[in-house]
């Protein structure tokens, strides 16, 4: 043995001794990833895409309920408080309702009486808090909302009868006269079209009556709405608290069906992407049967080999799941923005599910080919058969 060679060998040995001590397993994992960059990257890419799609779908599935519930609140009230036998509600009712709701919805009071127009025709006049009505009943088609005192909003069917030329007119209730100017018309296609709406303060000053109805649009799940209804019933023992059943039942039905469709779609998409990962990874592992055979020929135990490929798969699954999670949150937020005009909130509860799912799929796709290869003699594989 000549000196230069042994010197070089010694240098290499010294260099290796100085190098940080990494275990053989970690080194093999890193080298496998670096040397076969192309295939490692394509496997990782498949994993990231699958995890991203799964994250986006699960996140949407969890969040879409809240989004659609909010859309459903545009239908208006789902709870109505009515004084028993047409009696007025207590003066503090609205404040109490607001404190029960505590921001979980909106309430609008209505008072209603039958007044007479200048030519003696009976007409329903309602006192309403226009600011609240605007938020509660968004479907009202209003030409112009009243802004000042003694301005009225006239139903489209009432308008040609009470104020054909859009002029100011008088309303009489129990001998008291109210002079109002029309601010605009309201069209709903329902009973509101035959009514006249004036502000709550005008209504109370003119009739001396309080609101007799409070319409409440409570937001939340059916259970949360039931809790709000219970609280309202306890707060107002002398008042009828009724659910608006058509809205509640319709909402439950449409939400249920949409979620079921979404669940079916989610299951299909996750299954497809899991299979995509499975086929890519299995191809990758199968492709490395020579590495496997060499390790085995050099005396690696079955446990070490399993551990090696399992660790590799787990690392791939974890990295893919984390990157995919971030991408998936982005996709979900994008879908939320363009479809619901509100971002979908990231659900961290999805992360462990995606992580565990990814690991299971990657482990499965590593273990399946390995268990096939283990039955084969290394010599056969190395000969390329």
């Amino acid at each position, binding site marked *: 043995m000549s000196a230069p060679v042994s010197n070089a060998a010694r240098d290499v040995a010294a260099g290796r001794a100085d190098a940080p001590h990494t275990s053989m397993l970690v080194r093999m994992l890193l080298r496998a990833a670096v040397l076969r960059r192309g295939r490692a990257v394509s496997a990782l890419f498949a994993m990231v895409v699958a995890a991203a799609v799964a994250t986006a779908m699960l996140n949407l599935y969890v969040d879409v309920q809240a989004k659609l519930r909010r859309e459903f609140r545009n239908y208006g009230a789902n709870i109505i408080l009515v004084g028993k036998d047409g009696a007025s509600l207590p003066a503090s009712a609205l404040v109490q309702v607001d404190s029960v709701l505590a921001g979980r919805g909106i309430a609008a009071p209505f008072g209603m009486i039958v007044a007479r127009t200048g030519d003696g025709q009976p007409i329903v006049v309602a006192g309403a808090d226009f600011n609240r009505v605007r938020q509660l009943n968004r*479907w009202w088609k209003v030409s112009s909302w009243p802004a000042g005192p003694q301005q009225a909003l006239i139903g489209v069917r009432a308008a040609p009868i009470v104020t054909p030329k859009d002029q100011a007119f008088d309303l009489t209730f129990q001998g008291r006269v109210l002079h109002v100017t029309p601010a605009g018309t309201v069209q709903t296609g329902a009973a509101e079209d*035959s009514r006249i709406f004036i502000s709550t303060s005008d209504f109370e000053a003119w009739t001396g009556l309080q609101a007799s109805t409070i319409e409440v649009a409570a937001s939340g799940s059916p259970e949360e709405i039931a809790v709000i209804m219970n609280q309202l019933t306890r707060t107002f023992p002398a008042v009828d608290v009724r659910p608006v*059943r*058509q809205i509640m*039942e319709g909402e439950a039905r449409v939400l249920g069906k949409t979620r079921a469709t979404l669940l079916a779609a989610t299951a*299909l998409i996750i299954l497809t992407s899991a299979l*995509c990962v499975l*086929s890519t990874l299995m*191809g990758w592992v199968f492709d490395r049967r020579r590495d496997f055979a060499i390790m085995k020929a050099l005396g690696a135990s079955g446990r070490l080999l399993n551990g090696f490929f399992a660790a590799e798969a787990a690392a791939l699954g974890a990295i893919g799941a984390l990157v995919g999670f971030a991408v998936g949150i982005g996709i979900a937020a994008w879908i939320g923005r363009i479809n*619901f005009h509100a971002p979908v909130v990231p659900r961290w509860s999805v992360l462990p599910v995606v992580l565990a799912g990814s690991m299971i799929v990657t482990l499965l796709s590593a273990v399946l080919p390995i268990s096939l290869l283990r039955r084969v003699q290394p010599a056969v594989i190395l000969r390329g058969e």
Partner: protein
Amino acid sequence: MFVRLVYESFRRQKRRKVLAGAAITLGVTVATAMIAVATDIGDKINRELRTIGANLIVTPQEDSLDVEIGGVNLKPPTDGAFLNEADLPKIKDIFWRNNITAFAPMLPVNVAIQNDGKQQDVTVLGTYFAKDIQLGKEDFVTGVRTTHPWWKVEGEWPSDNLRDVLVGERLAARLGVKVGGTIDLSGRDLHVSGILSTGGTEDDQIVAPMALAQEILGRPGVVRRIYVSALTKPEDAFGRRDPKSMSGAVYERWYCTPYPAAIALQLTEAIPHSHAEQIRQVAQNEGAMLTRIEGLIFLITLAALFASALAVSAAMATTIFERRAEVGLMKALGAGKLAVAAVFFAEAFLLALFGGLIGFAAGALLADQIGHSIFNSQISIQPVLLPVILAIAVIVTFAGSAAAIRRAIGLDPVFALRGEL
């Protein structure tokens, strides 16, 4: 030689071909099912949204104002105009007749009843429950059971042809009426077949077959208003335009689109002396909900198509990569790049065709399953979609194979045969 190469490849490498074929089949199945669901979801959700109630109302044109508070109409019942009951079948005669899912006429009548020796005014609401209407050859069953599905009856729904009535639950509690009891309506002893619960004003009313209400009012053949439930298209900028300002062709297009306003106009034209209008609470919000849900399912369908395209590509890439040695051999024997690529593309084409056909059938079955289990109705897939799906399958398979094929034919036969990369 070319045909033999392809044929032998399928015969000898069954495992690989089955794997790749399975991936394509699965991808096409998911894509077909999602496309079928996405094209039908609008109609399905539209029907579900009909459970919130009718979206159109038809009233007499020259009607006097309703004076209604808390469900009690203070307007004298004989006051104002009526619609003719005989005109009702014309609703199913308009251009969009197939979009009319149901309608229910209403006729409120005030009746004084005796309670504890006191006189009390009660509204009797005449309507159809589930009335059989003859429309030419076909039967059409319509009434509140379809237009107002949230109405619950304890006991039995009355028949439209008998003189049984429903009593609202609050009124029943006040009067002490039970299911199977009788109620005295201005000299008529009527059988109470059920107690009605709606959560609305009907809880204080009596609901009776239309003919009975007309008899009490003394005006046979009249109704006060008609609730119509129609499948509509969400209103967009065009739908909101005023039809009076449109020119001929534009008006035609507006008229022949099932916007709520267009259907309302057709109802107004069909029923003499009437005025139809959308119930904005239902009609407007329905459009918004429909747009949201359709948009959501559309985006998800895109995601599904993307995922299945990727799965197909991945499977193709893997199978081609495994056959490097074969490519090396072909090239060593003198095959040109074109010849090698042609073999692979021909195989990919056959796989895509088979996988596409089976996947299409499986996808149609899957869509039908989804339809039955979620919506209790069929989701049928248009046969027109088959060539489209097959074309997509071929394109995706080609695209997925292209990169792998390019790499395979670029290999040096020496290295490929030795198994080094």
